């Protein structure tokens, strides 16, 4: 569903991604793991069109999307829930969700909003509240709910567990599993290696702008380098 070949990207003189190859098959959870600064967020930003690719190709459902602007990519159904949530703090929970359907799924907006509220009853309680006044966990729910409003074909989740309490982290991973149970393809970008490997089908480890390890989650978990560097075994 998503095919990335030889991707290079960066900012100014700095090159961050140095030849990334990645496949996200439909209906699977693919984890992209790596330490801070490995290039995970740059990879997401390049897929979404916020950062321009310098070389390589990105193909989504058979169509080249590198070089497209973010709205066109969102319209194609590749929906990115960014690191740091990026909800609209000055807008209500309802308005945030409505804007999730700005480019896609406008006709089914009401039904999708009900579905989001079924998944996150907390958001319904706070429907009129300004998103800036929500707790970190609630903002993360809102960011994911806003992404779901677009009826994504592929959902990119960037660090959804970042800054959440251990209990909420558990809840977040359970939620990702539930979203996936409906057949949704998910690219999960995380620093939380152990829990991501538990729910992912495939996993890739980004180091210095290129994938050092890749394969099924079980293969990656068994890799001695990964165990040493990321799991402390």
């Amino acid at each position: 569903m998503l095919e990335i070949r030889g991707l290079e990207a960066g900012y100014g003189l700095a090159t961050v991604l140095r030849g990334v190859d990645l496949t996200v098959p439909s209906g699977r959870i693919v984890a992209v793991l790596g330490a801070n600064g490995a290039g995970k967020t740059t990879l997401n930003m390049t897929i979404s069109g916020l950062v321009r690719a310098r070389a390589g190709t990105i193909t989504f459902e058979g169509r080249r999307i590198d070089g497209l602007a973010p709205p066109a990519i969102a319209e194609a159904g590749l929906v990115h829930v960014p690191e740091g949530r990026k909800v609209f703090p000055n807008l209500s929970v309802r308005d945030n969700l409505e804007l999730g359907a700005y480019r896609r799924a406008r006709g089914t907006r009401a039904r999708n909003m009900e579905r989001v509220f079924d998944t996150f009853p907390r958001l319904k309680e706070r429907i009129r509240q300004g998103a800036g006044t929500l707790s970190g966990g609630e903002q993360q729910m809102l960011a994911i709910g806003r992404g779901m409003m677009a009826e994504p074909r592929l959902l990119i989740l960037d660090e959804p567990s970042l800054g959440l309490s251990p209990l909420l982290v558990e809840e977040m991973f359970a939620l990702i599993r539930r979203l996936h149970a409906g057949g949704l393809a998910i690219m999960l970008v995380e620093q939380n290696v152990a829990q991501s490997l538990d729910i992912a089908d495939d996993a890739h480890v980004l180091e210095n702008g290129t994938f050092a390890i890749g394969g099924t989650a079980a293969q990656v978990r068994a890799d001695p380098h990964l165990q040493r560097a990321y799991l402390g075994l």
Partner: protein
Amino acid sequence: MGLPPEIILEAVLNGLLTGAVYGLVALGLTLVYGVLHIINFAHGALLTMAMYAAYVAWASLGVDPYVAALPLAALFFGIGYLVQRLVIGPASRGKDENILLVTLGLSIIIENLMLAVFRSDTRSIDVPYAMDVIEAGPTLLSYPRVIGFVATIAVGVALYVLMRFTMTGKAIRAVAKERTGAALVGIDVAHVYAVTFGIGTACLAIAAAMLLPSFYVSPRVGNAFVLVAFTIVVLGGMGSVVGALVGGLVIGVVESLSGLFLGESLGQIGIFLIFILVLLVRPTGLFGARA
């Protein structure tokens, strides 16, 4: 200062009426600042241009400024949209000091264009109702200023409805605070910037149409209003739409009262005293967000 209360009341009411149109000029400035985070130094020149447009509509086509207000607003929305999309946006890529230079340069070009076309003569139009007054209890109110006040309130309400209840307005507010998030839900940020700039310029066109029956127009006239508008924006809070309208009314009353007590030529001194006081005591303005 034993002035009779009716005179003071009349000064306050006239101040409110004039201040409303000041607020309308400030509205465009604060909207552009709030969403694009740029200070548009071409605001005054665009106001001048709009006043000349209203002047031409009257002098060449015989269209009353009040009739011309809405078509001019549409025309200037388009001009503002294109200026942002084709000039300011591409030229400002990244750096704030670029924007300053670009908008300053734009204002010089527009002013000199006006100077070349209309010469430096001050011009005014002669509408039959320019000196009409409306009786309100013990006071007399100038008819053009009452119309200007009503138009400002109408624009304020229209903007409120646009910002609160339409997808376009919500997209504008989203872009103002969270650009990346907005781009990711599929909002075209460059388009929203241009629409916002266009709305600000359309406000200027309406202000111009309201000012023309009672003010003269010359190639630099816009600057006088924009200087006051900057004070209003600081008083109301940078980026606050409500602040611009309330600030405009306050400044109008201050100007009118200091004119009454200190003499007409010193009327504006009160405005700048307020400006300094706000900067000292409440730098975020009346409705501004805390830093």
